[in-house]
């Protein structure tokens, strides 16, 4: 049984002009000890999908449909009190923007202690402090720095502290939202290496949200390529990178220069992502797709299994 199974998730934000269909029928599974990469451009719904799993949506966001199955429960409809027991103890998140996710007026160690005490009321403070020292050591931060304030930490150390915080209550699943952005290449490589090591050491399941396909290629086993709230392509990383089937994935991989491969002229995808208040009919990628046919205008492509473990939603396939 997979650790997490998201089925047909639909999340809307209501704003003055109507409802934004940020996530519109997204399904994927995360197996035990496996990392899944959620990729796509800004506004494609990847962060919303992740926040839906933890039910941390802003007040105007709402899960309108679908199921989020975890430990025989449906997180989409779970009561707030039961959800609190899931957060951190079972599913934790490393928030985007290491620079701003820590409270500047509290010591880093105390913030991790707070996370432990909130979610495990039976633990006493000195036990929690001991655990913080262990956690910091595990992520490669000198435990004596627990008494420092966030501004005394470098960017990489803050990101490590946030990772330590996410692991504070031994979660089964960790969601990392853009863990590499805002960090320098070398520090980013250090943080990703740490995540890979922790994943295999603790047999963690992970969801990695990023716009950088290369990070997914290096860190994840499976990936979901999202476009405008929909899944464009989903499956095994090797299969998708070797033979991308959806024109959007193909376009994305062409837009990504590889430092190792031959120097070619980069190509981008013309146009920009659609307005999710009023998405285009049929296939949402149609206005930017160079292979668009008549059927793409009228029918929304269903997601099909093109080859074993490789799913795609495109009329061109099959």
């Amino acid at each position, binding site marked *: 049984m997979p650790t997490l199974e998201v089925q047909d998730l639909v999340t809307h934000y209501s704003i003055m002009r109507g409802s934004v269909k940020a996530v519109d029928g997204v399904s994927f599974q995360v197996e035990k000890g496996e990392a899944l990469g959620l990729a796509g451009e800004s506004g494609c719904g990847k962060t919303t999908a992740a926040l839906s799993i933890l039910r941390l949506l802003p007040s105007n966001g709402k899960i309108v449909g679908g199921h989020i199955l975890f430990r025989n429960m449906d997180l989409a409809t779970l009561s707030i009190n039961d959800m609190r027991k899931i957060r951190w103890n079972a599913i934790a998140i490393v928030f985007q923007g290491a620079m701003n996710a820590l409270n500047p007026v509290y010591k880093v160690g105390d913030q991790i202690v707070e996370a432990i005490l909130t979610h495990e009321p039976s633990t006493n403070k000195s036990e929690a402090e001991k655990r913080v020292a262990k956690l910091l050591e595990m992520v490669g931060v000198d435990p004596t720095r627990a008494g420092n304030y966030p501004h005394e930490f470098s*960017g990489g150390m803050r990101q490590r502290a946030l990772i330590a915080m996410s692991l504070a209550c031994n979660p089964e699943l960790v969601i990392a939202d853009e863990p590499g952005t805002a960090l*320098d290449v*070398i520090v980013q*490589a250090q943080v990703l290496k740490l995540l890979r090591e922790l994943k295999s050491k603790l047999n963690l399941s992970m969801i990695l949200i990023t716009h950088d396909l*290369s990070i997914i290629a290096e860190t994840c086993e499976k990936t979901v390529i999202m476009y405008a709230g929909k899944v464009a392509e989903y499956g095994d990383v090797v299969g998708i990178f070797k033979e991308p089937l959806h024109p959007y994935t193909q376009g994305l991989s062409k837009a990504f220069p590889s430092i190792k491969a031959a120097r070619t002229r980069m190509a981008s995808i*013309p146009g*920009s992502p659609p307005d999710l208040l009023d998405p285009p009919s049929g296939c949402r990628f149609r206005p930017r797709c160079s292979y668009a046919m008549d059927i793409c205008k009228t029918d929304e492509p269903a997601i099909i299994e093109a080859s074993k473990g490789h799913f795609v939603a495109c009329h061109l396939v099959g």
Partner: protein
Amino acid sequence: MSEEPVIKAENLVKWFPVRMGFLSSFFTRRELFVKAVDGISFNVNRGEIYGLAGESGSGKTTTGRLILKLAELTSGKITFKDEDITNYSDAKMKPLRGKMQIVFQDPYESLNPRMTVTDILSEPLRVQGIGNETEIKEKVNKILEDIQLVPPEEFLQRYPHELSGGQRQRVATGRAFVLSPEFVVADEPVSMLDVSIRADILNLMISLVEKYNASILYITHDLALARHMCDKMGIMYLGKMMEQGVTEKVIYEPLHPYTHALISAVPVPDPTMKRSDVVIKGEIPSPIAPPSGCRFHTRCPIAQFPVCKEKEPPLVDHGDGHLAACHMIGTAIWKKDLSK
């Protein structure tokens, strides 16, 4: 390509004084400086894209600003087409500004939200006093075609909030190129944009360079993009030039351990390619008190003591204009490290 330097930067130095409180100035005798740029030299030739790469805090943006005289030099010399502009006043710089332009990083902040596209694109022409109203109109229309915002009528009266991120950066690029500049500093022009549209902006810049025979100083932290854009590159670390040369040489045959570390830290979009898990330790030290000797020695995997700690390595030509500043080049341990 002709080797006609448009910009010659020689030994650029920029130290920012650290502001201290009234009381602490009693206790510290010494004035402290952030040594943002500390002796950088390079040339940018006509029609060339020169990439300046490094981590944040390496001084690459400051270098760009120094060359355009947007920041005052502590010492050094800047030559623009045989004209020594080092000590030029703002008034003397003004006519040259039309020839030396900049594209800023964030198009969400670099465009005035109260100005229309027409206003933004015609302002440089008005400031420089070029042409009458009809000529300005013509030039604005022409630059809109150059930056592929067509038909122009559709964009002329729009405000920045009515444009997408990519379109904004096109306008910012157009604003730099409307004066037909000979030299443009592009400071991380695509780092705020979505991946799917980055290539468009970069390809646009390449085509404008060809069209106007201009030169670009391309400042970036993304080596994969830099390799696709640049003819030559310089790798900076803590205000010093570590390595410079033709892009292919710097990327494929890096000499400096820092360049090597930077390149191996770039993720590769190929899951079958297993990258070595060797990542150098630590983060960039403070430029207020940079390490002695070679500034990279505190993080260098092959530093040997005492030489790397005590003596600053000179930037030496290792053939074909491929320069590097490292004591260890050619030694056995260096060969072993680079073969990883």
